[in-house]
């Protein structure tokens, strides 16, 4: 069977599985719809969280990004995993103990303020919508590359699938489909990586093989370092940019991870407080499986690429080179007309452009693996994109039906009415997300900076203070949240949209890039919150005792 046929078979089979699971796990109450009745086993929830968290970008682009950035790419690896330590130690157990359905509900109840709740709803909606548009686009791109349909058709197919299981099953349906999606995506990621590790280092463990000596010779990593030096690229294992900026980007990604609403809500679904802690640990273990493999895949694929094309005649390029050239993801221009491929650090002389996504997409072919592996990678990429999209859409629908409708506009709505509106808003959210996926506004590429920066500067400090400071009051929390948001959003908007031509280290404040500004935004939030709380009355007694209740496991 050809790659095309395998792709149809494997993608089709995985979709059938998701739909079957959705039919089996239909939501019957709002508690089912919002938090899967709080009855999800911590290991199962950990797996679902991992799939929820790892998006199309983690699956397709991260390894390629690290291969291009080398040591500089470490900020993403540490930032997107270290946040789980904060989540497990500082957030998950207390939010589970609090035991409502959403993040805005926690903010509103803890500070006893409708304003705080509405500000939190607006943040949650904004963060989730920007993020989900990128996922829908990701679904479209995977479809178009593997099944040769247009990106638009791909987005519509993805929408139909998500619509079906998110609307029908709510959190319950999403949880079990995410478990299946995790299994598909991790299998699809590890198989090519293990094959490549075996071939290039002799070790089946990519994490070990990238640095282990090969038959007494230097390791693949050292070989790559040498190649990078020889060809005039920056060192692979050192450098990476200014220390201040690397620290800030790492901190912003960590705080943002801990503050992303679609991740936090997953911890409402486990039965006990201590399950929330262990579930975060399982989630990180499942995530670490992919995140420690990605840098190894980066090293193997980049070394393999350079060694097989550098200074070789263009006429004798391998088959995959030609195939991906037709998609525009590999571009070759023979600048000096010698018929050889020069892939060098100097942009004037470099003749080869390799898109970052190609590393994962083409790894089965580069490694000379059987056709079914390529089909598996397609199914894995779709699983990663769909699971994240579904988790985000659920946050959007709960924010609307529970926080806005039931919490603010129509408190007397019945349980059945609320469930109905939760489904309607999920459906509307899917359609809006699909529209944004088909007609992406110019900023989709910038959502990473935005979503993480805003989560880091709004939710992270506000939730942290809500648990760890009994003295923090509504006035402090709301002004801190608004100050952090305004600061971070205006910095990002200034450098990304208003004056993109000024977006360079020379113009940044303290040398901090827009990706890292969320760290400073969080500090602004803390400072303003403490200052305002200092000069306003302490929270009333019932809120102080709510804090005591959250802190105690029973």
């Amino acid at each position: 069977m050809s790659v095309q046929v395998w792709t149809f078979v494997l993608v089709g089979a995985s979709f059938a599985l998701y739909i079957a699971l959705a039919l089996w796990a239909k939501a019957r109450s709002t508690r089912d719809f919002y938090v899967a009745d709080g009855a999800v086993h911590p290991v199962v929830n950990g797996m679902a969280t991992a799939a929820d968290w790892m998006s199309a970008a983690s699956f397709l682009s991260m390894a390629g990004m690290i291969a291009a950035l080398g040591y500089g790419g470490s900020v993403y690896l540490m930032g997107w995993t270290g946040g789980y330590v904060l989540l497990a130690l500082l957030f998950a157990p207390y939010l589970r103990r609090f035991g409502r359905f959403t993040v805005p509900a926690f903010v509103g109840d803890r500070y006893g303020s409708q304003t705080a709740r509405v500000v939190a709803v607006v943040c949650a909606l904004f963060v989730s919508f920007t993020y989900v548009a990128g996922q829908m686009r990701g679904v479209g791109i995977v479809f178009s590359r593997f099944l040769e349909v247009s990106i638009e058709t791909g987005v519509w197919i993805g929408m139909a699938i998500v619509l079906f299981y998110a609307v029908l099953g709510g959190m319950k349906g999403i949880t079990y489909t995410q478990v299946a999606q995790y299994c598909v995506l991790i299998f699809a990621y590890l198989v090519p990586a293990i094959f490549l590790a075996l071939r290039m280092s002799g070790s089946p463990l990519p994490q070990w093989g990238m640095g282990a000596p090969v038959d007494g010779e230097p390791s693949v990593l050292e070989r790559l370092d040498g190649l990078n030096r020889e060809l005039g690229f920056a060192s692979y294992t050192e450098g990476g940019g200014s220390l201040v900026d690397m620290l800030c980007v790492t901190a912003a990604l960590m705080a943002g991870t801990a503050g992303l609403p679609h991740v936090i809500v997953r911890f409402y679904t486990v039965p006990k407080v201590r399950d929330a802690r262990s579930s975060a640990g399982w989630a990180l273990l499942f995530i670490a499986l992919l995140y420690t493999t990605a840098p190894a895949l980066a090293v193997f694929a980049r070394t393999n690429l350079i060694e097989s094309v550098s200074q070789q005649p263009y006429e004798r390029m391998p088959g995959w080179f030609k195939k991906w050239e037709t998609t525009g993801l590999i571009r070759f221009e023979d600048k000096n007309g010698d018929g050889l491929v020069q892939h060098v650090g100097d942009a004037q002389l470099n003749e080869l452009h390799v898109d970052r996504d190609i590393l994962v997409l083409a790894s089965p072919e580069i490694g000379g693996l059987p056709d079914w592996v390529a089909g598996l990678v397609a199914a894995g990429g779709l699983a990663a994109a769909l699971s994240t999209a579904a988790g985000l859409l659920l946050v959007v629908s709960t924010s609307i039906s529970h926080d806005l409708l039931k919490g603010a506009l129509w408190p007397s709505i019945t349980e059945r009415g609320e469930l109905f509106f939760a489904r309607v808003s999920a459906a509307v959210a899917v359609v809006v997300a699909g529209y944004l996926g088909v007609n992406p506004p110019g900023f989709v590429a910038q959502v990473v900076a935005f979503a993480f920066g805003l989560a880091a500067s709004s939710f992270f400090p506000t939730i942290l203070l809500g648990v760890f400071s009994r003295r923090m009051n509504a006035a402090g929390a709301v002004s801190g949240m608004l100050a952090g948001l305004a600061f971070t959003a205006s910095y990002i908007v200034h450098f990304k949209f208003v004056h993109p031509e000024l977006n360079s280290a020379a113009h940044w404040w303290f040398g901090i890039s827009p990706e890292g500004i969320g760290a400073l935004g969080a500090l602004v939030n803390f400072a303003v919150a403490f200052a305002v709380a200092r000069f306003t009355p302490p929270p009333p007694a019932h809120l102080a005792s709510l804090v005591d209740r959250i802190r105690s496991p029973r």
Partner: protein
Amino acid sequence: MSNQLDDGVRRAYWRANLRYLAILLAVWWLVSFGCGLVFAPWLNQWKLPGTGFKLGFWFAQQGSIFVFVALIAVYVVLMARLERRLGLYEE
């Protein structure tokens, strides 16, 4: 049951929790921001024994992530022990 819990037990629980958090978060900082970034250039003069990994680079791309997983596991165990000792464990 929960409202009869004595304030002394709750305070002891919270104090012990804060102590664990301080220690674990110090390690969290040390392996990521410390070994992975601030001290990485200095650590890079050594290699992870038996491999070609420069030590700072290894912490940034592998080691810190392993330690993160271990930190959560340790916290889970410590808190379960604390809750048992103070009679706060949920069956």
